[in-house]
């Protein structure tokens, strides 16, 4: 079996040929991953072949900087200070593939360092104003400062400090004009938080050919926890637990079960399902009077909560695409004609139109860029997020407004649009998917009549899948769950999140093996552990 061919074809090939109306039936969905690597080759009882692939090749990518979310969590976990309000003013981390942690976009400029300076000064003041919870000692004592340098700094910089570094920090503390240890400690905290050792995730170990245990721990923790490793993980590093693949796998499983892992999974969901788009969705208040920032929060949370439930449960994770149990927020419940409550509630629907994450108001709203639903945008989202089959943008200067095409209803308009051969190649891949979701409005409510006053279309199909036709989001979820490229795509999305970069051809082996590890039990944990382990 040629794993490389499969991974490349499914995850990396894209649909570049659709301009010319390429026959997609021949391009995708041919391979299965069942006949893969020998499960028992290393005796691992989880069925993951930890040594199936070469270690991650050195891939040219710039140094990774902490995202605003990572910075927030790091400060909260290591110093006990919640700086969320200040961090909200950090420049947004530009997203690539929906993820906020892609190193290619993590430039640093004046807008960043001026905010880092403000945050560091505020955090230092907070700690010195109320030192007990964070420091547990009196900052007027030099011993308190030295304890910070000796014990807290290695957590902040995520590795032991060198002796020259400790000396320099003490000298910085002593340079304050008033000579007071308290002010000196303030400078140390400020310098620690603005240092590249904190703001970036340098891996000098790679210069010697292998990451150190602390560097591996840092990779794991920002991948799985969206935060720094912290004291417990540092102890495991010091005990040598991250020195073997087996050890990394065990630590990764322990981390997956830690409450902090919900943050990492939320970060994955932002990019995988593009919930981040809800941040910028707006609705005309005249057409959607229920629209509010609080509703936006609910819409995000209901998607994140559903992913979280299946990521940590015993069922096949891809049940998330079909499960009738949805999590509704206090403000989003009316969108489902469910009773409004003051709390989040879980409701089991007995309705083919409600089931699976694709039927959540969150997904249906984030796939509607404007006030009017767009079958094109919804189809593009399914191709891009679930199948990893991104479409090329339309050719230059093509009139893209389907509403200007002739036709009584949306289906007819889109069909007229597709009569142009330069449009048909790609649009035949996306329009029919979105047309099967027209029964949901731009806030995910069920409807019978669409914005044009026409009966909303109900039938959809996903070109390229074996069983392509569907009616409603749950049926679409079922088709997608059966498709092998959905699983390879999920692995690709996990890899993007774990490594903070786009996939390359060199990732083919890891993607294929990770997909196989996932398929054994359908547990998202196995996928995460496989990627963490094979690329330590």
């Amino acid at each position, binding site marked *: 079996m040629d794993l490389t061919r499969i991974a490349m074809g499914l995850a990396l090939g894209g649909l570049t040929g659709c301009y010319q109306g390429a026959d997609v039936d021949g391009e995708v969905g041919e391979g299965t991953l069942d006949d893969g690597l020998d499960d028992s080759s290393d005796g691992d009882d989880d069925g993951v072949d930890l040594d199936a692939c070469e270690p991650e090749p050195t891939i040219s990518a710039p*140094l990774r900087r902490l995202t605003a979310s990572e910075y927030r969590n790091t400060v909260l976990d290591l110093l006990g200070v919640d700086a969320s309000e200040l961090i909200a003013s950090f420049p947004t981390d530009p997203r690539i593939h929906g993820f906020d942690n892609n190193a290619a976009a993590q430039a640093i400029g004046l807008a960043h360092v001026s905010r880092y300076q403000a945050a560091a000064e505020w955090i230092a003041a907070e700690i010195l104003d109320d030192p007990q919870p964070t420091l547990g000692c009196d900052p007027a004592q030099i011993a308190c400062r030295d304890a910070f340098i000796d014990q807290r700094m290695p957590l902040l910089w995520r590795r032991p400090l060198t002796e020259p570094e400790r000396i320099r920090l003490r000298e910085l503390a002593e340079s304050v004009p008033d000579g007071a240890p308290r002010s000196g400690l303030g400078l140390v905290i400020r310098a620690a938080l603005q*240092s590249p050792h904190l703001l970036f995730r340098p891996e000098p170990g790679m210069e010697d050919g292998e990451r150190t245990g602390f560097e591996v721990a840092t990779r794991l923790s920002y991948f799985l926890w969206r935060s720094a490793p912290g004291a417990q993980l540092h102890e495991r590093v010091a005990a040598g637990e991250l020195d073997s693949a087996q050890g990394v796998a065990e630590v990764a499983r322990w981390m997956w079960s830690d409450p902090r892992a919900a943050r990492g999974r939320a970060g994955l969901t932002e990019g995988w399902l593009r919930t981040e788009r809800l941040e910028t969705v707006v609705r005309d208040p005249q057409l959607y009077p229920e629209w509010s920032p609080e509703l936006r929060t609910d819409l995000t949370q209901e998607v994140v909560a559903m992913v979280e439930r299946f990521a940590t449960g015993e069922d096949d994770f891809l049940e998330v695409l079909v499960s009738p149990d949805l999590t509704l927020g206090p403000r989003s419940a009316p969108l489902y004609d469910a009773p409004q409550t003051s709390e989040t509630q879980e409701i089991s629907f007995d309705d083919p139109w409600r089931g699976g994450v694709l039927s959540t108001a969150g997904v249906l709203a984030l796939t509607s860029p404007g006030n009017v639903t767009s079958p094109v945008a919804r189809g593009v989202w399914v191709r891009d997020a679930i199948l990893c089959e991104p479409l090329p943008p339309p050719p230059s200067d093509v009139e893209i407004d389907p509403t200007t095409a002739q036709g009584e209803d949306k289906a007819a308009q889109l069909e007229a649009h597709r009569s142009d051969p330069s449009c048909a190649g790609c649009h035949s891949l996306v329009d029919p998917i979105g047309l099967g979701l027209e029964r949901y409005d731009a806030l995910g409510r069920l409807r019978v009549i669409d914005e044009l006053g026409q009966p909303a279309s109900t039938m959809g199909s996903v070109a390229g899948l074996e069983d392509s036709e569907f009616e409603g989001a749950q049926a679409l979820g079922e088709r997608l769950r059966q498709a092998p490229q959905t699983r390879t795509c999920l692995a690709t999305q996990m890899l993007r999140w774990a490594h903070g970069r786009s996939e390359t051809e060199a990732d083919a082996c890891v993607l294929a093996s990770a997909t196989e590890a996932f398929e054994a039990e359908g547990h998202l944990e196995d996928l995460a552990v496989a990627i963490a382990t094979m690329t330590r």
Partner: protein
Amino acid sequence: MTRRSPVISRRSLLRGGGVALTLPFLEALAPRTSQAATTAARRLVIFHFGNGCHIPDFAPAQVGDGWIPSPILEGVAEHAPWINVLSGLSNEAAAEAAAPGSGDKHERDFASMLTGAPITPTGAGGISVDQLAAQHLPGPLGSLVVGVTARNHVHNGRYSWAGPDSPVAPQTDPVQLWTTLFAEAQLDPLQAERLAAERGAVLDAVREDIVDLHGRLGSDDRLRLDEHLGAIEQLSAGLGVLSCEAPSTPEDLALQDDTLRPQRGRALMDLCVMALRCELSSVVAFSLGSTGGAHTYPFLGISDGDHDISHMDMRIETERAKYRDVTRWKIEQIGYLLEALQAAPGSTGEGSLLDETIVVGLSEMSRGGSHSAHSLPVLVAGGPMLTGRHVVYPCDPSTAFYPGLPETATWCSGTANDTRLSDLWLTVLQALGIDTPSFGDSRGVLEGLWT
């Protein structure tokens, strides 16, 4: 170990000198060419507005001197003598297809607008014109990148690029921008001295860490460390000399509220002009709103999002009117900026800041419905230039989308004969005294502007 001794910044001596920036009312506006003729261009301000416009409502019907404002250009009617309208410029770089999944048409138009090079899957095709200009012009802060709104993807939230993988984050909040530029000027001398000493010591320590790390990492990683060091230098510059009186704190304008967007935009423009006056920077890259942005216009009584408006059906008068009205408002903001530059004194003591500053106003696309980057709407002003003209650059005409377009505003078809936006950027760079033979996909300079 060396440590810098505390510096008493000039700003701290200017305590209490902060006065609100008030722009004198201009009684008469006349063509500025005679006044400006002897002044060299030494600054650059780029003003971007998102989501294009309906070109038939934009392009003046006359070519040459004395253009009569179109419905959209009514927004700068009183400033018409200061402005040249440029028709027929196309950003060819935006037309080139990027890899699948890496940039929709908005993103290709926007992220290549100032580089003249096609985007890459994760970044830009090269350095942007504002960043290149800032490398050659004085001012410790480099190009001041300021945006009223910024979206959150690399290709739709970033337009200024220090390099292909170095998107520059725009400053979006007036209070934060003021803090960066001027806050220390508001402290009393003792406080200021102490803060300067502390910050200087901390930033020195950060510098040492950067240098330390630099030697231990590979060349790819050093890109970010170089950026970090450069940004620290810019931040440290704030500890030094300020050659002007700082303005007082701007009002805190809530970021998420569209009703205050005009005030926020003007507060940011005021601060940009002050930064130029104070010689903190020679280049401003200002964006009134990201491409594809969904911001609304409650202050115009329009509740549709900007992007939705740009896709409306131009055959329906009420929809066309919305696109026209929001674009006219955007153009009015260019007028505000020009007045602010005209009201500020130039650095030579004679003339105004506008005399010394090249201003380019443009959108990343022409028509929203097709996201075309051909026949872009472009205005230029400032510097030593004959103004008050509508200049039409040659291209191969097409009537595919605009049967009603005025003859003076040819719809360019995207062939090799089109005049390129990069040619304008090259012209700007050379007018600023920057000796470069080309920029992006440029093919030559545009005649009759700052020459």
